[in-house]
């Protein structure tokens, strides 16, 4: 329901910035369940307005604001007349095939699992 599809490669997201998107979402990045999790605040963006792309070790988060206000503005503290854009360079330890994302209450969660090879392997030492 809240899942966001992650597009790989074919989008060709090579530009490191998008001049039309001026909003930079704040993020939390932390280690979780054998990988990394990225949380991004994207208020005003619904599930269909967010795109998560992976290309060339580059993770791109983009969000189009779909909020439609009612009435005439009489006091303004924020403006979402644009879109969100932010990119991160992925470590080679991340398994790019297994990246998943979901959107909930304006917060995007991207899960970046580590590849099996990157995980530490326990070697049993036998004593005779």
């Amino acid at each position, binding site marked *: 329901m809240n899942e966001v599809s992650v597009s790989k490669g074919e989008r060709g997201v090579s530009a490191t910035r998008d001049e039309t998107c001026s*909003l930079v979402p704040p*993020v939390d990045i932390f280690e*979780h369940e054998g990988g990394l999790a990225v949380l991004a*605040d*994207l208020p005003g963006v619904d599930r269909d307005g967010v795109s998560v792309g992976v290309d060339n070790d580059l993770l791109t988060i983009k969000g189009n604001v779909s909020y439609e206000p009612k009435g*005439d503005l*009489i006091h303004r*503290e*924020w403006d979402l007349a644009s879109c969100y854009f932010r990119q991160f360079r992925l470590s080679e330890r991340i398994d790019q095939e297994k990246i998943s994302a979901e959107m909930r209450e*304006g917060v995007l969660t991207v899960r970046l699992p580590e590849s099996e090879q990157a995980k530490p392997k326990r070697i049993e030492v036998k004593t005779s």
Partner: protein
Amino acid sequence: MLGTIDAIRELQALRREVERALEDFSLGEWTFPFSRVSFLPGLAGYAYPLMNIREDGNNMYVEALAPGLDKENLEISVMGDSLRIAGEKMPVRGDITPEAYHRSERSAAKFVRTIDLNTEVDRDKVSADYHNGILLITLPKSEKGKAKQITVKVD
């Protein structure tokens, strides 16, 4: 005398350097609303969430920019013509230790904010809707609050 002026100039140059260096670390140069969507502790917390106010003939609309709220903990109350919003920006799960963090920009905490609407509203008919991280509060204007049109006859 000349030496003193040079020294002052040097000091001023140094001060500019330091200020520029500090700016790089402050939130100042991050693009809006980067720094402002985040819940910032201290004084900035009093301005959370950011609110826009709109109105039409019948209603006042307060739009609060607040992603990741816990709806259950949200308290909205109206007293006179002031609106009070209290709630909590949910922290990331509690079992994540500080060492596990690579970046922490969103932060989370409880907040309370009161704003004056400057218009009388019908308290019993206030409604709120939370969608995509934006809290929209609709406050119907009371009869007193609605602008009355007065026709002035000119002789």
